[in-house]
């Protein structure tokens, strides 16, 4: 009989780990709160830098884990320590005994309404990166004008923000903004597109090419300066005030659409799990790895491992790589009891 491994979270980290554990001969049990697998990436349209389809990624992973036991719309009610493992009680009444658990509970998108000065939920044409991806995927959104002439993107909404209590860089927002700006230009070639940033953190393979292409091929304007406030004009457009720190001048533009790049915040569900399983929480609110160099997948509890954005903001390739590493760590632990 194959050995159970409980995976908490059915996003890309949980799915990729389940795939690897199946290949290694285990019986993964994926517990997902929502009614579908895929997490945040499942809501996304295309992925940088190759503009690959997010839906194809999720579909591919889903097909490869069809032999796993997947519980949707299910929560973990309790995690109890046994002599050589854990008993996990689920909200659907199922109890699972296992020697190892993987926490892949992901992140929560920062609530952009908390940055009140940007007017999300107050002004008619302010949306988030997540709203825009949903629209790219075909979900109607009355906030997006039929043919926007001027579109703005605000980077770092709720990331690297002491006042918002979220000091970490969310890593993916700069590139997501560049990607979404390009997608807007592809849909509305005559639109003027502005990106307001404080730093551009474009660290990955092909990211710099992507950024240069956004400027040279698509004519996207990058303004180094934060937006100070957003207001609404008589015709329902947005007035955005910012500072262009490279020219040292204040800037005021009228936009038809403003997209807020909401960052990654820690998932409250993760805090609940941490309390249940007595897992350490790091100073940034995310789960604390045993160390941040060699044991990023390991927790302070024997047999409990981490993968993906539950320990901090991650890109898709990083998350997938971590999930594979965590699966190997679990395999090693179960084989040798390490």
């Amino acid at each position, binding site marked *: 009989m194959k050995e159970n491994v409980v995976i908490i979270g059915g996003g890309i980290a949980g799915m990729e780990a389940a795939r690897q554990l199946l290949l290694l001969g285990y019986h993964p049990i994926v517990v997902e709160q929502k009614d579908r697998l895929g997490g945040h990436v499942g809501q996304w349209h295309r992925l940088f830098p190759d503009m690959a389809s997010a839906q194809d990624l999720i579909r591919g992973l889903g097909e490869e884990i069809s032999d796993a036991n997947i519980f949707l719309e299910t929560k973990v009610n309790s995690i109890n320590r046994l002599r050589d493992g854990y008993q996990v009680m689920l909200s659907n009444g199922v109890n699972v005994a296992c020697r190892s658990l993987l926490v892949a509970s992901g992140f929560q998108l920062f609530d952009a309404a908390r940055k*009140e000065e940007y007017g999300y939920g*107050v002004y*008619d044409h302010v949306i988030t990166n997540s709203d825009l991806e949903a629209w790219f995927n075909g979900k109607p959104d009355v906030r997006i004008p039929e043919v926007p002439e001027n579109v703005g993107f605000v980077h770092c909404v709720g990331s690297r923000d002491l006042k918002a209590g979220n000091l970490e860089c969310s890593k993916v927002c700069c590139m997501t903004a560049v990607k979404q700006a390009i997608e807007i230009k592809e849909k509305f070639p005559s639109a003027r597109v502005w990106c307001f940033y404080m730093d551009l953190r474009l660290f990955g393979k092909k990211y710099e090419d992507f950024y240069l292409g956004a400027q040279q091929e698509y004519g996207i304007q990058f303004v180094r300066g934060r937006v100070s406030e957003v207001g609404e004009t*008589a015709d329902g457009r947005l007035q955005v005030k910012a500072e262009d720190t490279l020219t040292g001048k204040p800037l005021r533009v009228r936009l038809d659409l403003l997209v807020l790049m909401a960052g990654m915040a820690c998932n409250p569900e993760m805090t609940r799990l941490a309390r249940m399983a007595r897992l350490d929480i790091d100073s940034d609110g995310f789960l604390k790895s045993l160390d941040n160099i060699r044991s990023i997948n390991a927790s302070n509890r024997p047999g409990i491992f981490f993968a993906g954005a539950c320990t901090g903001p991650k890109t898709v390739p990083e998350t997938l790589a971590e999930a594979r590493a965590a699966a190997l760590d679990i395999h090693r632990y179960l084989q040798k009891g390490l």
Partner: protein
Amino acid sequence: MIYEGKQKIWKDYQKEIPDDHWYYVRSCIRQNFFPASERKFTDITRNDLGKDVYETPYHTTCGGIAYHCDAIPQETAMTIVARQFALMTESGYENYVPSCVTSFGNYVEILETWREFPELETRIREQLWKACRREFNKPKYLAHTSDLIYHWRNEIAEKARYRLIDKETGEPVRMAEHIGCHYAKMFPSKGIGGAEYPYVLAGMIESWGGQVVDYPERRHCCGYGFRQYHMKANRGYCVSNTHKKFESMEPYGIQAILTNCPGCCYFMDRWQYVISEQTGKTYGKDGFGIPVFTYEELAGLVLGYDPWDLGLQLHQVAVEPFLDRIGVEYDPKAKYLGLNKEDLLKPELPTNLKCF
């Protein structure tokens, strides 16, 4: 504009305001700018609403104006404030209400600083004792006078003689609200409605029948900005900021502005004259300006106080079109008569801004 979005934010920024027993301190500049407003605050709260609002003639400036002009260090302002609190304590009160928005900001900033750095509070207590042998308790509740008028806005509405309704059209009067920077921009959680979409003045306008109108430069500074005005070389910058606000307001047909800061009310009123002399432009209907009121003046108007007892003749912008709009009865001939009916003399009229 999604009104429900604003309502959600307003719910997040409410504060506890005791219904009675307040120790009141006046502003050092309001007495000169709009001399009747503070007097009418005590009349309205004591006589119309029956509240216990106590004041003592021994209080001084809070030091906020000098602190924000960089004329005194914060520790000096703290010692002045400590003496103010000592007077409150000696009077047997624990709810403190200043009339000036900068004072309110100054008190909040000092209390928060003492909370973060208790050793500083200890030093200030020692300095106060050495200087004048006084001791103090910190206020249990701190509110601005506009918070209290907001708190009692529905009681005022019940007693109101006039509503903010255009008597010709039956439509609500279109009003802009403008809070002072020191009310909530430093500590958003201390202001009703927060800093971005403040509700303290909007709530009064809505309760008294008017309509609050938003405009793109609503959050922009009135122009005063302390050093922008007090350093004479910066006064062009001061008026240019006010000009920016009025240009932004122009398409919205705003009929009056409500403020809660001495500087905002004064400069948005007076600079309309300067702008009209410099550019020939006026922002009200038929060559008039847009009247700018304090919340005590507006409360007094809806309660039926005589506009000249409220000191409205000291506004640069003529208030008569607004009074006519909501149907306030007044004697135009009494505008420049003093308390004892003595003729105060009519001021020289501006070139372009229509006044009476």
